[in-house]
Each structure stands twice: as C-alpha cells, then as structure tokens.
C-alpha cells in the first residue's frame, strides 16, 4: 500500500461520518440517543444543540462526508492525491475548531459530558495530525 496515512484519514473520517449520521437521524426524528454517560440527551435537548436551526451533527455529517470523499478520490489518480491533501487539512482543522467549541459548550455551559462530542473531538485531532504530517512529508504538494 502506497499511502497509509490517507487510509488512516479515510478510516477516521468514516467512523466520524457514521457517528454524525446516527446523531443526525436521532436529532431530526426527535428520538433518544444511546448514551453511556447520560449527558448526550441533555446536550440534544439544549437549544445550543442547533446552530441557525440546523442540528450540530448535520454540520459534522457534511464535514466528514467531504473528508471521506476527498480521501477516496486521492486514491483514484495522482493529480487528486496531490491536490486534495490541503483541502482535507482545511476541513479537518475547521472541524477541530468546531468540535472543540462544542465540547467547551458541553463542559462549561450545559455542564455535562457527551461521549459522541468527545469522540468527534478525538477524531478531528487525529485527522489534523495525520493530514498535517503527510503534508510535511510531501512539501511539493
């Protein structure tokens, strides 16, 4: 396998995608969220779980989808492999800032702990570190 880091990016984003898909479905159908920490429901029912009327997981769904698609396209041809790494880093960095903000809201405003928000933060950290290190290795891209 030529590009292991891209596979890591793809796998992380895919896990994030399914988490966001599950949460979006539950939010949009006003259904409970399976939660081991007890905090997810508190977050879901908070007015802060929506931005401009759009549930927060929907933003995650868009971000993760973009990264999954771009990581996949990078394996299709060399041109994409070179050109799509920076956009992946940009989306991942944006996601990291967004995710950090959401965890801040959970911990300090809603005063609870949401397992999904925390896992998403870890995924975004992983995505930024992996894409950044790949970018460092290939300075010409």
């Amino acid at each position, binding site marked *: *396998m*030529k*590009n292991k880091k*891209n*596979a890591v990016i*793809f*796998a992380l984003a*895919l*896990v994030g995608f*399914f988490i966001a898909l599950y949460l979006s479905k*539950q939010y949009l*159908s*006003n*259904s*409970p969220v*399976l939660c081991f920490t*007890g905090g997810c*429901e*508190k977050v*879901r*029912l908070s007015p802060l779980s929506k931005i401009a009327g759009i549930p927060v997981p929907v933003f995650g769904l868009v971000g993760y989808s973009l990264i999954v698609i771009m*990581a*996949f396209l*990078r*394996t*299709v041809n060399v041109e994409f492999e070179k050109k799509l790494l920076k956009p992946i880093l940009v989306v991942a960095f944006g996601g990291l800032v967004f995710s950090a903000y959401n965890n801040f809201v959970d911990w300090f405003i809603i005063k609870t702990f949401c397992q999904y928000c925390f896992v998403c933060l870890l995924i975004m950290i992983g995505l930024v570190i992996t894409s950044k290190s790949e970018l460092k290795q290939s300075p010409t891209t």
Partner: protein
Amino acid sequence: MSNDTKVLLVIALVTIGVIAFIVFGSGSATQSYDPTVVNRGGVATGSATPKVTLTEFSDFFCPSCRTVNPVVDQLIQKNGDRLKFIYRHFPLPQHPLAFKAAQAAEAANLQGKFWDYKNRLFEDQENLTDASFELISKDLNLDVAKFNKDMNSSEVIGKVQRDERDAKKLNLPGTPTFFLDGEGLNLTNFADLTKIVEEKLNQ
C-alpha cells in the same frame, strides 16, 4: 483500480459491516420480562377493558422521558378506548429530586390530578427545585395541605418504592422503558412507539 482504492473500499465495507452488526445484531425489538411484575401497581389511564396495555417506567428528571411524554399522551388520546396506559416510577439515583417528584405526582394522584401533575413536571423539568412541587400543586388547584401531608405519607412513599423495586427486579437498563402487554420494547426511535402500539391495536 489502484491498490490504495481497494484498501479504502475494504475499510468502508468493514466499517459498514461493523455498524450493521451493532444496529441489526443487537437483539430483537422485544424482550421478555415477568409480566406479573411489569403491570402490578402504577397509575393507569385509558380503557378499563383494553385490547393492549402499554406500561412505562419513567423518571420525571429524565430528558428522554420528557421527550416521549407528548407521544404517549397522543397515543392515549387517539386510542384510549382500546389502550390502557400504566405509568410506573423509576427514579434514577443520578437525579436527586426524582424520588420526591414521584412522591409529589402520587400525592396529586390522591386528588385525581396525576396526569396534569405529571405533564407539569415534564414541562418544568429544567427548572424544578424542591419548592416547585408545592407551587405546581397550587397552580393545579389542589388542596395544598393535604398534598404536603400525602406526599410524605407511608402510602405514597411505599408506592414509589414498590415501582422502584420492580424496576430493579426487572433489571431495567434505564428510563424510559416501555412494555407492551408485558413484552419489553427496545426502541431506537420514539416514532416507533406509536407504530408498534398501533400495529398491535390493529391486529
């Protein structure tokens, strides 16, 4: 197709497989419990000669119970001639005022206002304090002196304790937990509750 593309497709298939196993392999939609324990006690409404009995173990401080409350109310309103609904208490230890809220609802029940009181508790869930119980009883025109006395009576406390004991005996995973004719429902979506109950009613 390059090797890298193939690897990503394998990763995608494995991930989808794992997710599908978690979603579809987590058991059937229903689970068997001891029906004699499920439906004893509680506060009932709806049909006296029901075709179907729906039982809920609930906690007035549980956000999901608040979310499902209007769904249950709608079910009773629509199908009250054939459906019996039993509300049972399962005050969770992480909610310090949940047991007291259950006592308050049972005290309101002794004055025939359980359902109104229950709805007020869910509506005000975010802002409930120790003082709220009496205030709600005043709002609902209850006899406040009797309400306060009943709330701490051994009859009321015993009722809540019995529900709580049964919930533990049934090994309930949390709240809300629903039973349809004694069969435990594994709901992933509250819209499914309406669907499952109405399907059973129309059988």
